[in-house]
């Protein structure tokens, strides 16, 4: 198994992307198509008293409006399709369809909207104060399994918090393991600090446009999503059709970073509008709208109390997180943050407490390393602080706490499949020249100071139990049907190569079938959570093994003997004892059709998902069908781990940071596709640098207005903010619970870079520690000049 795995290749969709021929959701047109635009809330929280669209509907070219009363209402704090009680600036209230977009927007401006302003909240801690504002009329937090509740902390919880100490009142989530008190009692050093990590946007290059039309009872939707199969049930539900009557087309996606993992409600608006008007409808989402609707990473206000032994071993960790969750159900970042702490540093005892507080800011969702990456930015500089106080090298304090294959994860201290963070640190330290470079820490030339940093991060990166589906057709080709999606990482293709590898296929003879649910795709996980590499290598392996068995069976039927007497080579099945007796894959496909039954899809395994079953039914009699649920063994969490090493130069007179060098090291098991991994390591680092130093939501506290609604305001880094050459490496130790040894890694590659950069900034400034991300220019200038910072401790949404 080494012909395809671990080698670079040209993914089949690459040429179309670089030549511009790739069609994204907004590139599709249909006869009679209308354009729709959204009327969005100008207020952070309001109730619609009345909508007068009389004048708008009289305008030439205006066809229809669609209001919240005409679309399925979403329960409780779920994100809405349209709403009569907007909970954030930019929440869609209604849609207008017209013959062109200008007319639709003109019509929106002609609509008289009567809104009743309601109290709003931007700062979680304000909401927790007695008498503080609630983001929703029914409460300010979501209690697990109970829904929206109001929780106010006691006045005494806030005593003494003016100096920046996080108040820690009643949490909604709490868990622990080990003996925390004992852990702190045994500690030589206890670090106890509060921190803030800012919310920030996803900046997906392709805004979440959707186009829809209905034909013969089926609804066709062109959407922008990371995933393919997993979008169907959710989107069908938003539209109000059975999944089998929904055709979902998403061949390309211009980035999602977690914000397009599954179906999202506004994706259903064109389908509802199309149903209402009887015409195809395209809803293009603009860049500014993407900042309202495009999800965001939750911010944290937190406190970390960590005990260390003299040798740097973490004896106890006590974590409290107040999560800024937006107004809706949000995402479970805080729990994932705690999980990350438990596995990256393997504390001997740990407690996590958290509360997720609702705010009238954009709905939160998963963003690359949700929770884990905030954790990395909060805790890694503290680790450095401890290392300095204990007189330990900063890589050494990470090594001593790093997990191994026997380490346990999270609240339940469950098993993991493999962990090689220590090896990643060793490889990185050697390759980066950590020891020599550390001598340059704090070295000043003129106004410029050198800083060196190392950072680590984690994400749970693998799933199981999904289906694989392959097909060999009488022309001899292998068709790998993949329902994972095409986020843009090419992992849909890299993981499909496993099927070709198992069947010893030439890649040139392999066809990837994907991007359109009418093309008979299997039930697959979403392309999120760094899980594709682990999950999809398993499904494709399982399906290919089924096909392999069928090839041997068919050969035995044709040429005599038992299936076990046969082996494969050069796309033929041959008798081991007489290689001159063989049938080609093309012949086998023909025989499969003739044999019927499970060979060509007339029968399918009982344990596959109904979606996969429908796909197999659609392929009946067209070739040799390999189909199976991934029932391979998996015990425990699949850790993706990463370490980043960085050297920077800070101009202390201007706060300008120049990144001189960066190395990212991945623990992702077997490397499937080196070029893609390299891109992930470097791209993840660029995203991490933005998280560390420039990106954040800002909200005017009086009006609730967002200040970052364009690239130039939200400030993601670009290629000129990073070195033109960055280095990468991989540990390369196979994961024992994956047939090819692979596991995912996309997400921690961002967090380790963000953490490394923050650690390097503190290093350059002589150990000064901000307890806040992003560390923007003015914070560095203020710190170096000995001025107070502009923001109050624990304040959120600052500039």
């Amino acid at each position, binding site marked *: 198994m080494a012909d395809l795995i671990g080698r670079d290749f040209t993914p089949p969709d690459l040429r179309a992307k670089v030549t511009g021929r790739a069609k994204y959701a907004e590139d599709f047109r249909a006869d009679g198509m209308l354009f729709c635009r959204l009327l969005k809330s100008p207020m952070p929280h309001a109730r619609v008293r009345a909508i007068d669209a009389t004048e708008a509907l009289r305008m030439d070219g205006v066809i229809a409006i669609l209001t919240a009363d005409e679309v399925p209402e979403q329960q409780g704090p779920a994100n809405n399709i349209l709403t009569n009680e907007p909970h954030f600036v930019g929440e869609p209230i209604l849609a207008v369809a017209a013959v062109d*977009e200008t007319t639709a927007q003109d019509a929106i401006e002609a609509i008289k909207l009567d809104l009743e302003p309601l109290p709003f909240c931007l700062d979680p801690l304000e909401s927790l104060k007695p008498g503080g504002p609630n983001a929703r009329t029914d409460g300010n937090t979501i209690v697990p399994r109970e829904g929206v509740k109001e929780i106010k902390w006691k006045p005494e919880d806030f005593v003494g918090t003016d100096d920046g100490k996080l108040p820690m009142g009643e949490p909604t989530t709490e868990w622990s393991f080990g003996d925390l008190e004992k852990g702190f009692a045994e500690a030589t050093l206890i670090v106890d600090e509060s921190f803030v990590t800012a919310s920030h946007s996803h900046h997906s290059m392709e805004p979440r446009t959707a186009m829809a039309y209905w034909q013969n009872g089926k609804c066709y939707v062109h959407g922008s999503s990371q995933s393919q199969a997993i979008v169907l049930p959710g989107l069908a539900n938003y539209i109000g059709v059975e999944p089998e009557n929904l055709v979902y087309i998403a061949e390309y996606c211009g980035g999602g970073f977690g914000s397009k993992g599954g179906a999202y409600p506004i994706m259903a608006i064109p389908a509802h509008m199309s149903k209402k008007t009887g015409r195809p409808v395209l809803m293009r989402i603009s860049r*500014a709208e993407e900042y309202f609707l495009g999800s965001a990473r939750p911010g944290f206000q937190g406190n970390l109390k960590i005990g260390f032994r003299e040798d740097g071993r973490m004896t106890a960790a006590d974590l409290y997180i107040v999560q800024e969750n937006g107004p809706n159900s949000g995402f479970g970042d805080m729990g994932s943050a705690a999980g990350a702490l438990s596995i990256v540093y393997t504390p001997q005892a740990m407690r996590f407490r958290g509360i997720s507080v609702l705010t009238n800011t954009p709905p939160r969702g998963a963003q690359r390393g949700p929770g884990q990456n905030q954790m990395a930015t909060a805790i890694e500089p503290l680790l450095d602080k401890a290392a300095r106080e204990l007189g330990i090298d900063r890589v050494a304090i990470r090594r001593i706490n790093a997990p191994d294959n026997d380490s346990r994860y999270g609240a339940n201290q469950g098993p993991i499949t493999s962990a090689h963070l220590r090896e990643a640190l060793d490889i990185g330290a050697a390759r980066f020249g950590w020891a020599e470079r550390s001598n340059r820490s704090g070295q000043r030339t003129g106004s410029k100071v050198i800083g060196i940093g190392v950072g680590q991060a984690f994400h749970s990166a693998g799933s199981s139990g999904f289906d694989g589906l392959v097909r060999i057709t009488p022309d001899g080709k292998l068709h790998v049907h993949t329902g994972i999606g095409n986020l843009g990482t090419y992992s849909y293709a890299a993981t499909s190569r496993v099927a070709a590898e198992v069947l010893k296929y030439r890649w040139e003879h392999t066809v990837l079938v994907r991007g359109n649910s009418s093309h008979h795709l299997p039930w697959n996980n979403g392309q999120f959570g760094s899980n594709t590499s682990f999950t999809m290598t398993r499904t494709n392996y399982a399906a290919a093994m089924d096909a392999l068995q069928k090839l041997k069976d068919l050969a035995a039927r044709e040429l005599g003997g038992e299936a076990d007497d046969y082996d494969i080579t050069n796309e033929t099945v041959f008798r081991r004892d007489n290689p001159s007796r063989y049938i080609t894959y093309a012949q086998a496909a023909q025989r499969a059709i003739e044999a019927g039954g499970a060979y060509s899809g007339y029968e399918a395994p009982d344990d596959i998902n109904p979606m996969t079953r429908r796909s197999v039914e659609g392929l009946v009699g067209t070739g040799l069908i390999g189909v199976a649920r991934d029932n391979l063994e998996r015990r425990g969490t699949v850790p993706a781990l990463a370490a980043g090493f960085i050297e920077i130069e800070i101009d202390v*007179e201007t706060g300008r940071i120049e990144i001189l060098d960066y190395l990212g090291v991945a623990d992702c098991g077997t490397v499937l596709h080196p070029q893609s991994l390299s891109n992930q390591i470097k791209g993840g680092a660029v995203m991490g640098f933005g998280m560390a130093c420039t990106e954040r939501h800002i909200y005017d*506290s009086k*009006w609730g207005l967002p200040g970052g*609604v364009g690239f130039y305001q939200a400030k993601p880094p670009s290629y000129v*903010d990073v070195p033109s050459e960055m280095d990468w490496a991989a540990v390369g130790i196979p994961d024992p619970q994956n047939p090819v040894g692979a596991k995912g890694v996309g997400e921690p590659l961002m967090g380790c870079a963000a953490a490394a950069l923050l650690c390097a900034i503190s290093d350059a400034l002589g150990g000064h520690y901000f307890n806040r991300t992003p560390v923007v220019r003015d914070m560095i*200038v203020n710190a170096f000049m000995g001025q107070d910072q502009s923001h109050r401790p624990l304040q959120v949404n*600052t500039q």
Partner: protein
Amino acid sequence: MIKDMIPGFELFQPTEIESALELLDRFGEDGWALAGGYDSLDWFKNRGKHPEAVIDLQGLAELNRIVEIPNGIEIGALTTLTEIENNPTIRERFGLLAEAASKVASPQIRNAGTLGGNLCQDARCWYYRYGVSCYRAGGNTCYASAPEALNREHAIFGVNRCVAVTPSDTAVALVALDAEMVIRNSGGERIINAEDFFMEPSSDITRMTVLEPSELLTAIRVPNTWIDADFYFEKVTDRNSWDFALVSIASAIKNSDGQINDARIVCGAVQCIPRRLENVEAMIRGRVQDENTAAQAGALAVQNAEPLNYNHFKIPLMENLVKRAVRG
């Protein structure tokens, strides 16, 4: 609230400057001169400005050239920032302007953005750009100077109701070079100093420059007066592309034998107009160009600065930039 959908307008594409001026005259407040489009289209998309007629200047060849004039050069207002950055004459004699142009936005924007457009662009205050009804937008309040307002990027000098700052990188360089602006309307031409081109909010809070609706900035004249000077330009931003200055500085300093003979020093992003530091220039004239002079210059530059909630970092930042400029 941002609309992101350009409304309809009548588009004129004159090929003679006289026709363009006639159109500007005809439409007055309802007309809009379009150059590279980076500021204009932003306003149109957000429906923050609703011109009836857009006069596209791209067909006016005479506005897109760099010519020698007695004692200097004249740069057509339509010259792109990339052309300014790469022009051999400008690089050789007015490196300060080339440097400033090279720091504007991103390569793509510099390829289409013009010198005239960069000088005439509107304020970048995020509240104003968001579309609130503030003083500058014709309303009766300033959102950015409210007690809890987020005003990190705003002014520390010369505040008068509006706290927005000049966003132009080339403006500070041209004031430092003592350039002149050539302004035309259908009735003729007027020439004013670059320093007087920019509008204080105390004079007219709704305009960034002295241009009347019927007027066009056609060219910028840069005199040879400062070609022998040492130039210094620096723009501090959050990131290295597509970012406006937190503070910028442009200076031209003439010296001989370590002594400063004359200087022009201008800061951007600290006031609504490019802030010329005449007191600093006067103080350093005749002084030895050393660390001590630089430190005194820096301290003097920020005297009487008045920070808002989130921008007191601009004071040491400006002080440091002045020091660096004077230090040479």
